[in-house]
């Protein structure tokens, strides 16, 4: 009973609880190596999982801000592609060096985010439409810059500076992208939970009109949420380029859907006003662990896709108070 009341009071505990369950099940059903050890628990495998989810994870953190404020951002995958392309060209063709290339890539993310937000807020347009337009436009721009080709990154003379290798380095056996993901999670958790800005994001998400009447600068706050999403997508784009040593304008297709799934599994409501970064972190891990264990078992794509669909519905259903409520209402009415 104590567990249940704890789960009831603290929304963020539920997704954490979910990750724990999945983690235990992964251990139980892990394939065994020839020596009888549990493959899933190998250090290499666990760091693989974290590294593989770090890009989607960072994007999902930004997406959480937008969704809590009552919006949606479909452009994240294209912004990642744009940032990845700019990174590769900045460092290889334009010889901007490490720092300026990264500033340029992040700036591209922040500006696309700003445009998304401004069109939504001042253009009185639904964010679904505004970011759908950005999704195609940003991809088009990435293709334009790159002349429809991917750009490979090489090292040595007239190529990428060695400092760029830092993104592929490991510290204490853990790759840098994992540290970046964790740092972003902690920093933006503080921003959302402990600052005035964070509280405003919740406020405009749960009731925009009331927030307006209370004197909040609703438009400005909304724009900031999109800037956060754009900025983090661009950061993910830089990591993406460094991981593959290639900036590809065609990458990141469908990332928006993965990010939205992770956010929703983490207990954030698509209606806005409710959600948490820790929940999203857990949602990202749930998806990552599932694809890992399915991959280790060599489960084919058809079954993986069907299972993922089921998992998304089940995860949201299990932790959704509101949904329970709807069901109860439905049944009491009938009886």
């Amino acid at each position, binding site marked *: 009973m104590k567990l249940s009341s704890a789960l009831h009071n603290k929304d963020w505990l539920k997704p954490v609880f979910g990750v724990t369950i999945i983690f235990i099940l992964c251990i139980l059903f892990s394939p065994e190596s020839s020596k009888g050890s549990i493959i899933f628990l190998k250090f290499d495998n666990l760091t693989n999982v974290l590294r593989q989810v770090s890009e989607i994870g960072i994007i999902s953190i930004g997406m959480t801000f937008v969704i809590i404020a009552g919006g949606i951002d479909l452009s994240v995958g294209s912004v990642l592609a744009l940032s990845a392309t700019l990174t590769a060209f900045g460092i290889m063709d334009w010889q901007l060096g490490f720092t300026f290339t990264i500033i340029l890539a992040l700036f591209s993310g922040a500006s696309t985010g700003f445009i998304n937000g401004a069109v939504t807020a001042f253009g009185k347009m639904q964010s679904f439409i505004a970011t759908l337009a950005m999704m195609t436009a940003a991809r088009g721009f990435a293709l334009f810059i790159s002349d429809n080709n*991917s750009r490979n990154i090489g090292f040595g003379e007239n190529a990428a500076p060695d400092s760029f290798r830092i993104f592929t380095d490991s510290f204490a056996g853990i790759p840098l992208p994992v540290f970046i993901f964790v740092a972003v999670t902690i920093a933006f958790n503080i921003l959302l939970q402990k600052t005035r800005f964070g509280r405003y994001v919740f406020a405009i998400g749960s009731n925009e009109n009331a927030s307006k009447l209370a004197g909040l600068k609703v438009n400005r706050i909304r724009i900031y949420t999109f800037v956060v999403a754009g900025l983090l997508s661009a950061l993910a784009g830089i990591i993406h380029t460094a*991981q593959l040593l290639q900036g590809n304008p065609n990458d990141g297709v469908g990332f928006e859907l993965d990010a939205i799934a992770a956010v929703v599994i983490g207990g954030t409501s698509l209606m806005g006003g409710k959600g948490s970064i820790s929940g999203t972190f857990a949602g990202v891990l749930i998806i990552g662990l599932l694809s890992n264990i399915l991959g*280790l078992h060599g489960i084919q794509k058809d079954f993986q896709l069907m299972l993922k669909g089921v998992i998304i519905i089940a995860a949201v259903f299990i932790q959704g108070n509101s949904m329970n409520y709807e069901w109860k209402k439905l049944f009491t009415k009938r009886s």
Partner: protein
Amino acid sequence: MKINSILKSISFFLAVFLILSCGDKEEVKKYVIGFSQCNSAEPWREAMNKEMMKEAENYPEIELLISDGNQDNSKQVADIENFLVREIDLLIVSPNEAQPLTAIVEKVYNQGIAVIVLDRKILSEKYTTFIGADNVIIGEAAGKYAAELLNGKGKIIEIWGLKGSTPAQERHDGFIKGLAGNPGIEIIYEQDGAWLRRKGREIMENALQRFSNIDLVYAHNDPMAMGAYLAAQNAGRENEIYFLGIDALPGAEGGVQAVVNNQLEATFLYPTGGSLAIKTAVKILNNQETEKNITLETETIDSSNAEKYL
């Protein structure tokens, strides 16, 4: 209520994982081979998977794992990382793109695991064996066949695979090489069909409008050749034109069937190398010597021998 729903959720996930573990009860095989396919959605690559699975059944001591990279470099890198933690004995990889896959393939090779690279190369010499077909030779075979068919005189339409892609360029270069020494033959129209049947049809429709006299269509793959055939059929001109394709996939939708149906004059086999890859893998696992580069032979398939390849 709450406890109840938690129990429900636990039992649900348990059920899911039980289903998962069902297929996993086979006896432990001696060798595990991981095959990282870049994209199973293409018919030619699906044929490669099937060929490999069929060949693997001949060797009870090996277990074959196949992963699908969904045409996504990151996904394919993750697939290979999964193979590494599964402690595979040999990796077969058909890379989506060379550069992004090079580092991980090198990592596998450096751990002392043998690597067979299939169809597309990587930017490194750190692999055990490369198996692939030579598109220039295939294009050349098509060119020679066309020259013979036309008796050294005629007008040709060429429908390209995706321009800028290596196989398309090589199938073109080979074709020109095969036509050499026949000044009476000219290519009057060439367009990028991006490997797609739909595009092949559109290009041929335009060509039929523009040219009253077409003798032969050379398409860089069978689906585009079939698209072109359909366009000619609609215009009632399919009997005055020869159609040549490449790939020669088996199955109802494949190019071999189209040759049997007298739609395509001929198609040129672009072998997937699936079964040879497994045979080579077994050789390597048994410590036998293999060549570093193996080039697969092409085969001309026309009405004389098509039945055999169905």
